[in-house]
């Protein structure tokens, strides 16, 4: 099976999406004869080539981060470039991976509905959407903490490579509970707010400016400084 993959992250090769895909691909290529072609949608100049690749593909995987409740702008631009293909495709199947910084899968469920509809619009068979929250931290966390997650993506890719389908049980496992308990959130908040964000702010010498309101009339404006 040949899989045509589009990485929709605006961070391109430095993205968390890339890390998840790497493990998926490692699993996918376990099956002999499987191959893939991977494109980064952030390379906007290659846009025409993306359309050709999409048009000629038999199996498609689009992986994207959730940006403010939907697909990032660059992914929407890619989707718009596919408009001439609407109703033309009969054979390709398409699946999606949506990863978010917010921990709960619920944030991505609305984009999931859009992606299912998009597949129909493009005349593609919809393979489903894999949703995973809380991914922003994976590059900052110690390796052993992200190891389990990456292993699951490997397994997802391995089964997909054999069957052409996302394994339902793994999809449920990756999504996790739709809502987080207050307790679990309380612990996460300390890790994310105090550790992760303040660490980044300090690193950039910006901790003192973290609450700035450069565009507010009522507030102390720093824009004019």
């Amino acid at each position, binding site marked *: 099976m040949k899989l045509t993959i589009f990485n929709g992250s*605006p961070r391109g090769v430095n993205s968390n999406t890339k890390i998840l895909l790497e493990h998926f691909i490692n699993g996918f290529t376990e099956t002999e004869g499987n191959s893939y072609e991977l494109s980064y949608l952030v390379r906007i100049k290659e846009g025409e080539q993306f359309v050709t690749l999409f048009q000629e593909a038999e199996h498609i995987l689009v992986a994207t981060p959730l*940006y*403010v409740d939907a697909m990032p*702008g660059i992914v929407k631009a890619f*989707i718009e470039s596919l408009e001439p293909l609407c109703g033309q495709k009969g054979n390709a199947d398409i699946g999606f991976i949506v990863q978010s910084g917010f921990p709960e899968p619920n944030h991505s469920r609305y984009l999931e509905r*859009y992606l299912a509809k998009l597949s129909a619009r493009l005349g593609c068979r919809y393979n489903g959407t894999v949703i995973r929250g809380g991914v922003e931290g994976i590059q900052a966390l110690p390796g052993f903490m992200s190891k389990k997650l990456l292993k699951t993506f490997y397994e997802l890719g391995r089964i997909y490579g054999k069957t052409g389908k996302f394994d339902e049980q793994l999809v449920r496992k990756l999504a996790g509970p739709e809502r987080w308990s207050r307790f679990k959130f309380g612990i996460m908040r300390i890790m994310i*707010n105090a550790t992760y964000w303040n660490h980044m702010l300090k690193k950039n010498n910006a901790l003192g400016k973290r609450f700035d309101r*450069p565009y507010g009339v*009522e507030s102390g404006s720093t*824009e004019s400084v």
Partner: protein
Amino acid sequence: MTNVKLYFRVTSVLNTALLERQMKVTILNGNPDTSNHTFDDYLKNLSDTLTASEHNVTTLVLRDMDIRYCVGCWGCWVKTPGHCAARDDLGDVCRVYINSDFVLFASPVIMGFPSALLKKVQEKAALSVLLPYFEQVNNEVRHVGRYPRYPRIGLLLERSETCDDEDIQIINDIYARFALNVKTTYGFTRLTSDPVKEVADEINHL
């Protein structure tokens, strides 16, 4: 004492009733297609109607602004808090946005969703007006607000030939989520097939 309280209550209600007629309204025109005059004309008409009802209306034509795609650098949170590190025209959008009472996101529907042009601006502006920190609101994780108040928002769409009611419903639901994300309540989703006066009335009654 009770009378004094009542007096203040009544005057504050009256004040609100009188003041709410005047709003700062911003229209974000996300039409990428210069040849689509119908859409721009509709917005012009809407802007004139709102101005006639004493509102202060600003329209930003996003396609004429230099705004780059978000690259996910978190500059607006951890390097130059509150504004985009790219230093493009996004600052103009943020300034107008945060000082508005109501912001209308407007776009033709392309492939079942508002334009990439509108989405690009929407996601960058949203991050700039929020803090990176997490809080839990209604049992969901959200970002903490950066500003003390946020404009209400609404959406105006132009249907394409292939756009059905399900598409409109999906977009509506995503924008209602977006409203929660940017610390406000969702006004409405309207179509350019609705009379301008109806949309203006809806904004008037928010």
